[in-house]
């Protein structure tokens, strides 16, 4: 980033700024004219100056020019004769002209403001993007100390005022300055003395006020730092909430935050005091000038040195003066303020060292494979305290090779692995692959050809599939479905104007051909294969069962699902298990489903028919009213509320039983208690409209066999089915038609989970082990129809939640690992990626991966040498010192220990150990 904000702005917006400048300059003559007109109105029209010598008419709007003497002079040339008008006509004519000028000035202002705003927003976009891009260039050691929440706050919030200012940066002083200067010039032209008075007061304003404001600014800066720290601290506490509770440190944390808040308050309070002092002075100066104008100007007018028209015009012009001046001073203050903010932001984004830009630059997708000799020379990595993590590492291996790094409990192997994966680049010594310096390899190569699977899997919110293919989205391959319409062109134009990328996330980013795949379907299958490899296949299948099937996306599966429904039904009947599932039947009440579900007989798509909303949905209410069900259901709600308030009373809010069983959320309990009290004494008449709504919510979730309050009889069931029919009829053509997807035995319901679609009914409550038995039969049906893969594919749509929180630790690790495997890198670095698996599973997984990487390169950090049996090369660490104990030694390693025989185990030599350690001591003792 540029050191100076103004240079940064100027560099990127020069052209736009110049265009706006031109507009500002063009506006000035009109402005001057609008200042001058009042004088003419007073003098010529009102005071009759134009009719002085007994003339009855005057010409108005005559357009002409007198040729300058340079061209020989001559009589005045008239282009337009103008109108001949009387005094009244002149007055109205001039006034109208004044109005027109007001409009013209307004139009100029409008255009300038819009242009300014657009310019500001574009710069804001560019700046946010530049800052964001900069974070990619932070080296790992800086990233460790950067707080994510602070960086996010900077990019989101703190940049905002700067963006607001950018539009004004050059134009505001230019626009306001020229306007003020015009007004000033006008006053000076009318009367020098008045001009001098106005100028000197303006001068005071300009000199004194900014000085006062400087203090205010300093305080503002302190405030900004304090509030950013507060934000960071709150973030830390929230992240570490568990520790706070474990150690009963709430009081301490509260006191700490309280102290910070006081400091903030104190700063703000002092800012206010200064701010209003400045304001006071400003107002005083502004008000005192008219005093001079009236007295001094009046004096001149009485003396006849100034005519009334001029005086009026001067006062009017002076009226025009303070607003631009005030804004100009504001601008100046803003300038300092924003410059400070900008400095702070750029400081935050200017670590000691940035990763060179060339690392990210270009580089073709089909870069050369990472093969050839991997040479490590005198590698040495220190921790922040200066003690060695890895030292004396020198190897030369011919890739592809499978290399095992085994430690003695220290961090050495992991550090070496991370160095090789370029996760650590703060080391001394040299590493090259195929003759290319590892540190200088572009990320386009390391990011595709080399992959690192570490202990902490990093997942992003989105679907499972998004996370798995994250490593395949390097560059857009071709434009997305959006095509090349006007909107897209506009989007791209804006992007290029602001230094943003023109590629859109909607483009096709996965190069299927490079992966040897036909398209998205094959990729899905590849993903599933890899998931099976890491033992996550069943999980994905389960996700699929609770996932939603979009018939448009999975037409084949949708068809099969409908077929499976029939097969499942037949199988259940065969095994005398029919009673375990109550199927959906449009003409019958489903006892195992809620009343709400029976009413809608469909799945809610948007929010209009979900949860509480459906009780107040006008269509639902209309149907219930028409079927006389409203009162009945409210009465049921009353009964339910009564029971719930009775049995859940005394449970603390937030108790798990509430969440699981109660119809009523803990927070709403007191409110329902009130309703129940009114209900118990006065029944329905005691209820307000809102009460009725609240009660109506409850029975919609009621299932008789599950909740067993004895509230539903056959008559009611029949009436609810009637209401269902009416709902279906009335739904047609309403704006809610898209909000609910009705159940249809012949079609898949895209809004309901796959499992429900297969069942097309509800498992009976109250039959022991019903769910398990039905699940088993359903599993058979799925296998029989060969739907497992398709269902697993639906499972790839599973939303993993922020940071993958909806997955277990092992699933997260599996996803991160598959993400690496699917990339098919030339070099795979495994550093603790198997830590969250059980021992047996980790061992078999390692064996599978080792086998799969025959012919490619694998670097694995292992716990013991027994695991390293299948590896070509074994490196053993003693503390930070690595020693190769198996595999071909470097052909021309220093010291002449030219190991040849591949596979021969080299015993570590004590002497050689010493030989490498001794120079260390020599160096330390001069």
């Amino acid at each position, binding site marked *: 980033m540029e050191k100076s904000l103004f240079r940064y702005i100027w560099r990127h917006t020069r052209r736009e700024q110049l265009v706006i400048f031109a507009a500002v300059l063009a506006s000035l003559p009109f402005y001057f004219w609008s200042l001058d007109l009042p004088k003419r109105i007073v003098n010529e029209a009102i005071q009759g100056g134009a009719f002085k010598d007994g003339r009855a008419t005057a010409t108005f709007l005559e357009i002409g020019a007198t040729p300058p003497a340079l061209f020989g002079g001559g009589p005045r040339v008239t282009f337009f004769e103008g109108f001949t008008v009387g005094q009244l006509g002149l007055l109205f004519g001039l006034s109208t002209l004044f109005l027109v000028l007001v409009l013209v000035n307004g139009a100029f202002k409008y255009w300038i403001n819009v242009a300014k705003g657009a310019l500001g927003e574009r710069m804001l976009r560019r700046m946010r993007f530049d800052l964001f891009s900069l974070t990619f260039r932070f080296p790992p050691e800086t990233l460790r100390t950067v707080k994510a929440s602070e960086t996010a706050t900077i990019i989101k919030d703190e940049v905002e005022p700067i963006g607001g200012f950018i539009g004004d940066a050059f134009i505001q002083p230019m626009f306001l300055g020229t306007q003020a200067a015009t007004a000033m010039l006008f006053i000076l032209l009318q009367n020098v003395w008045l001009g001098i008075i106005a100028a000197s007061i303006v001068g005071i304003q300009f000199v004194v006020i900014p000085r006062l404001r400087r203090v205010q600014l300093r305080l503002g800066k302190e405030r900004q730092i304090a509030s950013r720290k507060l934000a960071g601290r709150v973030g830390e506490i929230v992240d570490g909430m568990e520790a706070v509770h474990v150690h009963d440190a709430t009081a301490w944390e509260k006191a700490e935050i309280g102290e910070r808040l006081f400091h903030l308050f104190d700063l703000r309070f002092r800012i206010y005091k200064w701010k209003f002092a400045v304001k006071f002075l400003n107002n005083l100066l502004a008000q005192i000038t008219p005093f001079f104008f009236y007295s001094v100007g009046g004096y001149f007018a009485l003396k006849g040195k100034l005519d009334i028209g001029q005086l009026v015009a001067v006062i009017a012009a002076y009226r025009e003066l303070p607003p631009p001046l005030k804004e100009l001073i504001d601008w100046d203050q803003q300038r300092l303020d924003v410059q400070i903010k900008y400095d702070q932001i750029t400081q935050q984004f200017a670590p000691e060292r940035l990763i060179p830009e060339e690392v990210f630059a270009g580089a073709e997708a089909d870069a050369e494979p990472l093969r050839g000799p991997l040479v490590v020379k005198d590698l040495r990595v220190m921790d922040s305290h200066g003690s060695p993590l890895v030292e004396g590492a020198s190897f030369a291996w011919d890739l592809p090779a499978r290399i095992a790094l085994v430690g003695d409990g220290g961090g050495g192997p992991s550090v070496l692995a991370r160095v090789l994966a370029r996760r650590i680049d703060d080391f001394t010594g040299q590493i090259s692959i195929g003759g290319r310096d590892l540190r200088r390899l572009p990320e386009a190569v390391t990011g595709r050809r080399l992959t690192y699977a570490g202990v902490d899997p990093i997942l992003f919110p989105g679907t499972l599939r998004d996370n798995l293919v994250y490593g395949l989205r390097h560059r857009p391959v071709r434009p997305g479905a959006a095509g090349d319409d006007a909107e897209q062109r506009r989007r791209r134009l804006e992007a290029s104007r602001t230094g943003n990328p023109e590629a859109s996330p909607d483009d096709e980013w996965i190069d299927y051909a490079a992966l040897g795949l036909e398209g998205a379907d094959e990729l899905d299958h590849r993903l599933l294969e890899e998931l099976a490899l890491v033992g996550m296949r069943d999980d994905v299948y389960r996700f699929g069962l609770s996932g939603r099937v979009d018939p448009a996306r999975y037409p084949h599966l949708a068809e099969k699902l409908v077929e499976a429904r029939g097969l499942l039904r037949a199988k259940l009947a065969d095994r005398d298990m029919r009673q375990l599932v109550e199927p959906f039947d449009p003409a019958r009440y489903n006892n195992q489903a809620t009343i709400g579900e029976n009413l809608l007989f469909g799945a809610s798509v948007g929010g209009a028919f979900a949860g509480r909303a459906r009780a107040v949905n006008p269509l639902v209410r209309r149907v219930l009213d028409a079927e006389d069900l409203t009162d009945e259901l409210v009465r049921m709600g009353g009964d339910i509320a009564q029971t719930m308030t*009775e049995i859940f009373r005394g*449970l603390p809010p937030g108790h798990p*039983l509430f969440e*699981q*069983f109660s119809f009523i959320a803990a927070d709403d309990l007191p409110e329902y208690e009130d309703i129940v009290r009114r209900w118990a004494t006065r029944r329905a008449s005691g209820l307000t409209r809102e009460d009725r709504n609240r009660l109506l919510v409850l029975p919609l979730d009621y299932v008789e066999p599950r909740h067993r309050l*004895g509230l539903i009889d056959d008559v009611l069931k029949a009436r609810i089915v009637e209401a269902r029919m009416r709902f279906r009829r009335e739904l047609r053509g309403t704006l809610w038609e898209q909000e609910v997807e009705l159940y249809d035995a012949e079609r898949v319901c895209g809004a309901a989970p796959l499992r429900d679609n297969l069942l097309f009914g509800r498992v009976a*409550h*109250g039959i*022991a082990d019903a769910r398990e038995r039905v699940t088993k039969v359903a599993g058979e049906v799925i296998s029989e129809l060969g739907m497992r893969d398709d269902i697993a594919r639906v499972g790839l749509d599973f939303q993993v939640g922020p940071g993958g929180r909806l997955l277990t630790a092992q699933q997260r690790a599996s996803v991160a690992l598959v993400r690496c495997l699917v990339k098919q890198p030339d070099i795979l670095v495994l550093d603790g990626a198997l830590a969250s698996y059980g021992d047996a599973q980790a061992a078999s997984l390692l064996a599978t991966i080792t086998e799969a990487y025959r012919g490619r390169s694998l670097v694995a950090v292992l716990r013991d040498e027994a695991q390293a049996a299948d590896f070509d090369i074994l490196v053993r660490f003693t503390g930070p010192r690595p020693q190769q104990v198996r595999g071909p030694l470097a052909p021309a390693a220093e010291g002449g220990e030219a190991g040849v025989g591949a596979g021969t185990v080299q015993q570590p030599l004590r002497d050689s150990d010493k030989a490498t350690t001794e120079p260390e001591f020599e160096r330390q003792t001069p």
Partner: protein
Amino acid sequence: MTLDTEVQSLRQVPMFKDIDPARLKLLAFTSERVTFAPGQRFFSQGDLSDAAYVILEGRAHVMLEAPTGVIKVAELGRNDLVGEMGILSETPRSATVLADTDIIALRIDKRVFLELLGQFPQMSIAVMRELAKRLERTNAQLAGRAS
């Protein structure tokens, strides 16, 4: 059969008889009413203990699978509580329970039951009292056998 009749049944169980009616209703409401067909197992010896059952209707019996063969240990009928020891001691099922007739039972989930005990000391005390009584009875029997 509704929640209220279930509460009546729970009241007949010695372990629950001193518990406040509102709490019993909560216990009933958070339990699940399940039916078993004749011959169906409640659970098998060695299974994880995940729930206790109160029999509302029907008969069942308890079997021990010993190396010597299967021994029928006890008969269960209306208002009997079974499986509570497993969920309290967090040990696997010590015996198998099989339905003799069609059975309606109340399934009290372990997690829910422990939540309730944690929340309401009165319930915990009632359970402890019942366990203490059983221990006392066992002691008395042992004493009787010894003398």
